[in-house]
C-alpha cells in the first residue's frame, strides 16, 4: 500500500488488530482513562482548540495593526485581545504543549514503562487543565482581562477594570495541572525506566522532559502564590504590591519572573529534545555529543532560575542586582550554543532525508538561533535600556516560542503522528505547509526586530505613521502563517480515516517507542523490555533493515 521513497519502506503495512485506540470506544472510556497515551491525546485535542482561540486573537491584533490608527478595535478591546492572546498561548497552549502531549504519550514508551507512575494523578492533571481553561473561557465571555499576561501591579491589583481575579484564578489552576504533570514525569523517569536503561542511555527527549519537569515542580508554586497574593490584594486591598499602601510593585515582578522566565524554558527544553530525536532519525546517525546535549538541558533548567532579573533592568531594580542577572544570563548562551553546534555536527556525514519532521527541525535550528542571538541583545544591559518593552522583545520571544517551541511541536506531531494513529499524513501537503509556516513566520516577525529597534513600544494599538510599512509586512506574514497552521489541521484530520497505514516504524528510527506497533497496544509492552544498547545506535539498524521490517513485537 505505501511506498515512502526517502525511507525505503517498501513493505506494505496493515493496521494492527488490537491497539489502545480500539480497545474501548465509549466517550466514558476516554474521559475516565488511566492510559497515558489517551491522556496525551486528550491534551492534544484540548490544546489544539486553545491554539485556535489564541491564534484568532493574534489575527485580530495583526489586523488592527495593519493601519496606524485605531479602526478595527477600541483601545480596551485591543488591550483585551493581546492579553487574552498571551494568556491563552502561554498558559493554555505552550506550557502544556510538548510536555503534556508528547511527554505523556511518548515518554513512558521511550523508557519502556507500562504507564506513568501515577495514572490517576495524570488524568486529574488533565481535568485541572480543563477546569482552568474553562475559567479562562468564562473570563473571555465576561469581557476578558486587559492587564497583559504579566499581570503587573499596581495596574492589575487596583486600576484595571478587567476580570483580573478570574483570569489569575485560571492561571493558578492551570499551574497546578502543570506542577502535577511535572511531578508525575519526574517520578516516572526516576523509577519506571526499563532494566538496563541507565540515565545516559535515555533518549534526549526524555532528558528534555526531565529538565522541563524540574522547572514545573520548582517554579510553578512561586507563580501560584504570587497570583494568590494578587487576588487577595485585588479583593481586599491589603497593599502587598500597592505603593500607596506601603507595598512594592517591583516585588511582584520578582516573584512573577522567578517562574515566568524559567517558564520560557518549559516551552523550549522539550522542543530541543524533540529536535535531537528528529535530527538523529533523519540523519540516520548517532547524536553527536550525546552527554553534552543531555547535560546542557539540565544546565539550562538550573541556570534558568538565576536569570529572572533581566526582565527588570529598567524597572527600578538595583543596578547591582541587574549586573548579576545580566552576567548569569550570558551563561545560558553556552548550553544553547552547545546544542546547536552538536545538532550541526550530527548532520555532518549523515544520511539526510527531508521528510516533514526534518524540515521543521532545520527550521527550528534557524529560527531558534535567531531567537537566541537576539536574546543576547536583551541580556546586554546597555542595549536593553533601548529595546526593553519594544517590538524587538516581541519579535525575540516569538522567534523562541513560535519559531522554536511551535516548530518543535509540529516536528514532534509529524514525527510521532504515525505512532499516535498508525497512519501517515500526505507528505506533499505537509512539506508545503512547513514551507508556508517558515516563510510566513519570518515575514511576520523579522520586520518587528526593525520596528522595535526604531522604538515602537509593545502593546500599542496606534503608532506613528512612518512604521506602517513594516507593520503591513508583519500583518501580511501573519496571514500566510495562519494558512500554514490551518493546513496541518485539515490533513491530520483527513489522515485519521484515509491515511496510509504506517507500520510500526516508518522512519526506521531507534528508540523503544518504535518497537511497538502503531498505534501501540493498550498496555504498551507485554513484557518489560531490557535495554542493552546505547541510544541512537543507527549504525546497527542499517545493518539489518530487513529484520526490522518483519519484526512484529507482539509475537517476539
Amino acid at each position: 500500500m505505501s511506498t515512502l521513497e526517502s525511507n525505503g519502506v517498501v513493505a506494505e503495512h496493515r493496521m494492527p488488530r488490537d491497539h489502545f485506540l480500539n480497545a474501548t470506544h465509549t466517550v466514558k472510556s476516554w474521559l475516565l482513562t488511566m492510559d497515558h497515551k489517551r491522556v496525551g491525546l486528550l491534551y492534544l485535542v484540548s490544546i489544539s482548540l486553545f491554539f485556535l482561540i489564541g491564534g484568532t486573537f493574534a489575527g485580530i491584533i495583526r489586523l488592527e495593526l495593519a493601519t496606524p490608527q485605531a479602526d478595527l478595535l477600541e483601545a480596551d478591546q485591543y488591550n483585551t485581545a493581546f492579553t487574552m492572546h498571551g494568556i491563552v498561548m502561554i498558559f493554555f497552549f505552550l506550557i502544556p504543549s510538548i510536555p503534556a502531549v508528547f511527554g505523556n504519550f511518548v515518554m513512558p514508551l521511550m523508557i519502556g514503562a507500562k504507564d506513568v507512575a501515577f495514572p490517576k494523578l495524570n488524568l486529574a492533571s488533565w481535568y485541572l487543565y480543563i477546569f482552568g481553561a474553562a475559567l479562562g473561557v468564562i473570563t473571555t465571555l465576561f469581557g476578558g482581562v486587559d492587564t497583559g499576561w504579566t499581570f503587573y501591579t499596581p495596574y492589575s491589583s487596583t486600576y484595571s477594570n478587567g476580570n483580573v481575579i478570574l483570569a489569575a484564578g485560571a492561571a493558578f489552576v492551570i499551574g497546578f495541572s502543570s506542577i502535577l504533570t511535572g511531578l508525575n514525569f519526574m517520578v516516572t523517569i526516576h523509577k519506571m525506566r526499563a532494566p538496563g536503561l541507565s540515565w545516559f542511555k535515555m533518549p534526549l527527549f526524555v532528558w528534555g522532559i526531565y529538565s522541563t519537569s524540574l522547572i514545573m515542580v520548582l517554579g510553578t508554586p512561586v507563580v501560584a502564590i504570587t497570583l494568590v497574593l494578587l487576588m487577595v490584594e485585588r479583593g481586599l486591598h491589603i497593599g502587598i504590591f500597592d505603593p500607596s499602601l506601603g507595598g512594592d510593585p517591583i516585588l511582584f515582578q520578582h516573584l512573577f519572573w522567578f517562574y515566568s522566565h524559567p517558564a520560557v524554558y518549559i516551552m523550549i527544553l522539550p522542543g530541543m529534545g524533540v529536535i535531537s530525536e528528529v535530527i538523529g532519525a533523519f540523519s540516520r546517525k548517532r547524536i553527536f555529543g550525546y552527554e553534552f546535549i543531555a547535560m546542557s538541558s539540565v544546565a539550562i533548567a538550573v541556570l534558568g532560575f538565576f536569570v529572572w532579573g533581566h526582565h527588570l533592568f529598567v524597572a527600578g531594580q538595583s543596578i547591582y542586582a541587574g549586573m548579576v542577572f545580566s552576567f548569569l544570563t550570558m551563561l545560558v548562551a553556552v548550553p544553547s550554543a552547545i546544542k546547536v553546534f552538536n545538532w550541526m555536527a550530527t548532520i555532518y556525514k549523515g544520511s539526510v532525508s527531508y521528510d516533514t519532521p526534518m524540515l521543521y527541525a532545520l527550521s527550528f535550528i534557524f529560527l531558534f538561533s535567531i531567537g537566541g542571538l537576539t536574546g543576547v541583545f536583551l541580556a546586554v544591559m546597555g542595549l536593553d535600556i533601548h529595546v526593553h518593552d519594544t517590538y524587538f522583545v516581541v519579535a525575540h520571544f516569538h522567534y523562541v516560542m513560535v519559531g522554536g517551541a511551535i516548530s518543535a511541536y509540529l516536528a514532534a506531531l509529524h514525527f510521532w503522528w504515525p505512532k499516535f494513529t498508525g497512519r501517515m499524513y500526505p507528505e506533499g501537503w505537509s512539506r508545503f505547509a512547513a514551507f508556508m509556516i517558515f516563510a510566513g513566520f519570518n515575514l511576520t516577525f523579522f520586520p518587528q526586530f526593525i520596528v522595535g529597534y526604531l522604538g515602537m513600544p509593545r502593546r500599542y494599538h496606534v503608532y506613528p505613521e512612518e512604521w506602517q510599512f513594516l507593520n503591513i509586512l508583519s500583518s501580511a506574514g501573519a496571514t500566510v502563517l495562519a494558512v500554514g497552521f490551518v493546513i496541518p489541521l485539515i490533513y491530520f484530520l483527513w489522515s485519521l480515516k484515509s491515511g496510509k497505514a504506517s507500520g510500526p516504524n516508518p522512519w526506521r528510527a531507534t528508540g523503544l517507542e518504535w518497537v511497538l506497533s502503531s498505534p501501540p497496544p493498550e498496555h504498551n509492552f507485554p513484557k518489560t523490555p531490557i535495554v542493552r544498547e546505547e541510544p541512537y545506535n543507527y549504525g546497527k539498524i542499517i545493518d539489518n533493515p530487513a529484520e526490522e521490517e518483519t519484526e512484529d513485537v507482539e509475537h517476539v
Partner: protein
Amino acid sequence: MNQEFQFHPEMASTFAYEVDMLYFFVVAVSVFFMALICVLIYAFAVKYRRRTPDQQAEAQIHGNLLLEIIWSVIPLGLMMIMFAWGAYLFFRVNQIPEGAMEYYVVGKQWMWHIQHPTGQREINELHVPINTQVKLTMASEDVIHSFFIPAFRIKNDVIPGRYTTMTFEATKTGKYHLFCAEYCGTEHSRMIGSVYVMEPEDYQNWLSGGVRDQTPEEAGARLFSQLNCATCHSDRAGARGPSLNGRYGTEELMADGEPVLVNEAYIRESILNPRAKIVSGYQSIMPTFQGQITETNIFNLISYIKSLPVTEGTPQ
C-alpha cells in the same frame, strides 16, 4: 522627525551613539554566527542528503571533547565581552552628572506632566536645549509607566511611590518621539508626546514665549508657608522639628542611630510617611501629607528645600 521609511533610528544623544556602537558589535557577532550555522547546516544537509532509501550514514561519531570545549569557550568569551560592555554603558547612563538641568516628570494615566527648572510646565512635550546635560526626576501618580525616547536610546520605568531618574545630553536638534513603554491601561498607546531639542537661543526664546509660572522654588516656598511647615521646621531654639536650612545633600542622624542621606527620596518619604525615619532628638509628631499633596507639589517642596542656604548657627 523624519516621516520617511527608515531602518535605523536617529541618533540624537551622546548615549545613542555609544549604544549603537555596542548594537552594531552584537549584530556583527550574531550575523557571523547565523551565517556559520546556516552555511554549515544547510551545506551538510545538502551534501549528505539521502540518495537511496537504504543509504546509511557515512560514519557514526560519538562526539569530540575538543570541539565541545571550543564551541563552549568561544561563545562564552564573546558573551563576557558583551556583558562587560553593556554593564559599563548601563552604569554610565545611570550616573547622574553634577550640575545637570533638572526637570521633573510626573506620569499619570495617560499623560506626561513635565516641569522645567525655570517653572514652565508642559504636557506631553519636552523642550530641551542641545548639548546640555539634563536630569529627569520621575514619579507616577498611579500605575507604572516608562519614559522612553528612542532617539536618545534611553528608557526608565516611572514607578508610583518612589523616584527614578534618567539623564541624557541631546546632540541633534529636531523633534523626537516620546513614548510610554510600560503598559499602563486603556490609552497606553496614546500616552505619547514629543521631545524638542533646540539651540540654546531658541530654547531661551521658547522659555520666554511660554507661559511662565513660578519656578519650582517659588511654588515650593509658597506651599511651605501655606502648609505651615515653618511652624516647626525652623532655626529657633526649641523648634519642634529639625531645621531644613542647608540640609540637602548632608547626612542626618536618625533616632535609631542610623545616618541617612538627605536626598529627594528621603524628603519625599518624610512628607508622605513622616514616621518612617525620625531625626535624632525630635519627636514623631509630624502629620502625614499623604493624599493631600500632588507629586508635582512634592517636587516643588523638594526644590525649595534644596534651595535653602546654610544659615548661621545651623548645627552641622
